[in-house]
């Protein structure tokens, strides 16, 4: 385990019932870097991402073997609760999913469930979080309007603000831009790069350019196996594995 690793997966196997979805994954995710997970549909990218904050707990028949360490502590076997884990490891979904509440209430949700009640404190958190995501000026006059009225891109950035409002250490993003237009996509990419100063970011993407543009490390999955991982530049320039090469050059997938 290297000095700088945030997450370490060791001999990780995951089964959905009889289906072997992740096969003996060994992988380190470095702190304050952007790690991109790529691979064809159904190869287990989302599944792997979900093992990192135990969202698989909600899937019936899902069984996990091996270790997943966060800062050296096993998130499945130590006394760290899933609740506590998810407070440290936030998640942004493929479809923007703001709650049917106001913009303000969406951002204040996380702090509230952690017991912060004071209005002044919440106000401040909402402002800082929205600023951090770069949408304060856009939203400051409509904080109390429903978040459902926003565009997809705005909703997704709001969801990111909602996630960072509780100061997680890691932000997981599962194809956060696949439902967005190019301009919104660009904004989210810029945001992700900006965010890695404070957070460790793991992003699933089907977009090779995106992985190339923003990530430091790339991991290529295929049929539940981690085929190759390395510095993004190296992996895209000189893939070691034939299958990686075929995939990133678009010959299959």
């Amino acid at each position, binding site marked *: 385990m290297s000095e700088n690793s945030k997450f370490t997966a060791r001999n990780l196997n995951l089964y959905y019932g009889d289906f072997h979805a992740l096969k003996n994954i060994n992988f380190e995710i470095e702190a304050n870097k952007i790690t991109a997970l790529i691979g064809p549909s159904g190869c287990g990218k989302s599944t792997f991402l979900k093992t990192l904050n135990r969202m698989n707990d909600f899937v019936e028949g899902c069984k996990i073997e091996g270790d997943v360490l966060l800062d050296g502590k096993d998130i499945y076997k130590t006394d760290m609760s899933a609740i506590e884990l998810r407070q440290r490891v936030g998640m942004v979904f493929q479809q923007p999913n703001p709650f049917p509440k106001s913009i303000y209430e969406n951002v204040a949700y996380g702090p509230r469930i952690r017991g912060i009640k004071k209005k002044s404190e919440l106000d401040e958190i909402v402002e800082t979080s929205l600023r951090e995501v770069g949408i304060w000026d856009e939203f400051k006059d409509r904080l109390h*309007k429903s978040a459902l009225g926003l565009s997809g891109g705005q909703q997704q950035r709001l969801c990111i603000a909602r996630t960072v409002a509780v100061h997680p250490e890691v932000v997981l993003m599962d194809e956060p831009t696949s439902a967005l237009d190019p301009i919104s996509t660009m904004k989210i990419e810029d945001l992700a790069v900006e965010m890695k100063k404070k957070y460790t970011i793991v992003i699933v993407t089907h977009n090779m350019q995106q992985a190339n543009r923003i990530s430091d490390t790339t991991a290529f999955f295929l049929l539940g196996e981690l085929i190759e991982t390395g510095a993004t530049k190296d992996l895209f320039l000189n893939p070691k594995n034939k299958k990686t090469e075929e995939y990133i050059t678009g010959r299959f997938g």
Partner: protein
Amino acid sequence: MTEIKNEQTKDLTPSRGLIGRAKAVDRIWTVVFYLVALFFLLLLFAFAGYVIIKGFAGATPEMFRFDRNGIGNYFFNTIYLVFLSLLISVPIGVMGGIYMAEYAKDNAFTKFLRIAIETLSSLPSIVVGLFGYLIFLVATHSQPSLLAGSICVAILSLPLMTTTTEDALRSLPPSYKLGSLGMGATLRQTIQSVLIPACVPRIITGVILAAGRGFGEAAALLYTSGSDTNIKWNPHAWINPSLNPFNPLRRGGTLSLKTWSSFTASVGAEDVANLSAAILMILVLSFSLLAHYLEGRIRKKMGDTK
């Protein structure tokens, strides 16, 4: 696969004649559905109109009074009894719905519960009334009361509240729940702060339906609430608690019971019965309209805090 696709494309581009015929059939059915809708509308207007006009035709000013001879007190009792019953059925029903949607495991016990709820929803109200009479009055040696009546009405509307809440929760996008849990919220926090607020418009619809049923309920109250009323609005009279309108343990007939008892009790009281029916009709209609208006507003403003 490709072959099937080709065939489908063929089917999707039929000849002009076919399209013309499809359009004609479409038009005919549209007309049929309009006629059916119109029929319901006419039925409602004719029925409501008849009851209301007939009710007011024979009315005298005394009948509107809130005293021994008027039906004002019955009007008050109707609303108060339904209010009490909702105080019981809404919290229990909503909690039951939450349990069924979020906590119940897929096992034999849950299946049994589901059958129980279904059976409860099809119980004849007279049976519930009789049950209430035996349990709340006979077994406890009590007099008929608004409370006993409202519990019976609550029992009748419980299944509706439960299934409405369960359906509302199940029809929410799963992303609400996952989003909240993914932030480290507990299931209880998620239900309380995200899911239930998102279900409010539909729960309100359930409350409307439950209240509508409660306003008109007669059979369940026959043995439980008492069919007459002698409340006084002068606070000095409330030394005797049975005269206090707000005392849930006093007896209190509703408009529907008044309609029934006036018809059967004395000759010449038909006018009172007709007016009771008319007022009841107006009550149900206006409540339903108001509630739909409210639901629409909440739905539209969903998520706005101001």
